[in-house]
């Protein structure tokens, strides 16, 4: 490199040939220090690079949508939680055996819930067109009040049964703390699928169809 220091201080720029310290240090400490440093600089740089490479990998690999999520309940009997219908009567999950049941955990103000609502309407239509084969669909309302929920459905459509989880039974039994979540339970009451965040009508219908065909 053709250095042309214009006003830089010579002491600052060429420490090794520095008239002050060069004489003193290069002769006596310099050699052992230098050889020590030389051996260290490159390996340390490589080591740091490896660690940061792992970090970059982590950042690049992470953050997937995490659609289908594991749960201890998967392929086990669903808990027999109960909730309350709009009219005050009791909804008992254990009595829904015999048909496919899809539970959608929701609050009126969660943005993904609003986003997925049109797909839910489409999904319910698709299932209804299958007749008795089709899955039953329930919204499990998490914290919204009756008025908020009514206003939500009045504004955005959807006419399936709505279940209020007033005693947090569903929330605690299913371990749902973040909405929306969609759970699929087969006719014998076994949990088959847990989906976190938004769902798509076609994908959900197809998945349930594939479960049916697999004879589950």
């Amino acid at each position, binding site marked *: 490199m053709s250095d042309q220091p214009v*006003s830089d*201080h*010579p*002491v*600052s720029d060429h*420490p090794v040939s*520095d*008239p*002050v*310290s060069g*004489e*003193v240090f290069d002769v*006596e*400490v310099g050699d*052992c*220090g230098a050889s*020590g440093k030389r051996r260290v600089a490159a390996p340390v740089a490589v080591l740091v690079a490896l660690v940061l490479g792992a970090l970059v990998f982590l950042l690049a690999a992470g953050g997937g949508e995490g659609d289908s999520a*594991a*749960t*201890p*309940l998967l392929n086990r009997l669903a808990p027999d939680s109960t909730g309350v219908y709009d009219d005050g009567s009791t909804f008992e999950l254990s009595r829904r055996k015999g048909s496919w049941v899809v539970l959608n955990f929701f*609050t009126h*103000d*969660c943005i993904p819930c609003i986003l997925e609502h049109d797909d839910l309407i489409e999904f319910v239509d698709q299932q209804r067109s299958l007749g008795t084969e089709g899955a039953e669909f329930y919204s499990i309302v*998490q*914290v*919204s009040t009756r008025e908020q929920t009514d206003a939500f459905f009045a504004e955005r459509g959807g006419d399936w049964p709505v279940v209020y989880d007033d005693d*947090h039974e569903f*929330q*605690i*039994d*299913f*371990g*749902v*703390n*973040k*909405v929306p979540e969609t759970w699929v339970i087969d006719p014998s009451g076994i949990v088959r699928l847990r989906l976190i965040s938004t769902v798509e009508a076609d994908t959900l219908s197809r998945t349930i169809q594939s479960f049916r065909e697999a004879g589950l």
Partner: protein
Amino acid sequence: MSLARTVKRWPAWALLVLVVVGFMAVGTTRDSGPRTEEQRIESISKRLACPTCVGESVFESRNPASQSIVEVIGVEVRRGELSDDEIIQRITAASEGKERLVPSASGIEALAWALPAAAFVIGVTGLAIAFRRWRDASQQLGAATDDDYALVAAAMAVHDAEAHDADDRDVAAETETHGGPQQS
């Protein structure tokens, strides 16, 4: 000055230590009473993440979803059967712990505790090793001789001739540069 010096001798320091220990003893043993239910709910809800709003604890969040979890905590606390950890365990069990704000001490989550400790140990050890090497190096150097001082004076004269326009350094003229010259 000498009075100030005398004051700063060890009896005054001993007094200081006594005072500090005394205040600490008063402050830390002060009885603030048994924890109320409300305090328990507060401390538990501070350790859980708000489910629908990322980043806030259930305690801070004014979101309904968090409020419902606070209610669940309240039910358990008033029932009074479970410990704080057990309540958290129960609330987060079904969700594989994703609402816990503090990593657990087992499995991969233990790394969150082990790595900071390791970083600290590495840092302190590194410092210790560095100072040891420096000490060895400076012992090899030995004390500055008259030749050294002459060398420095000569070098500084050259240095100043080159650099006198560039700086505004102190004009103190003492040359008591014990321990070798330095770059300034």
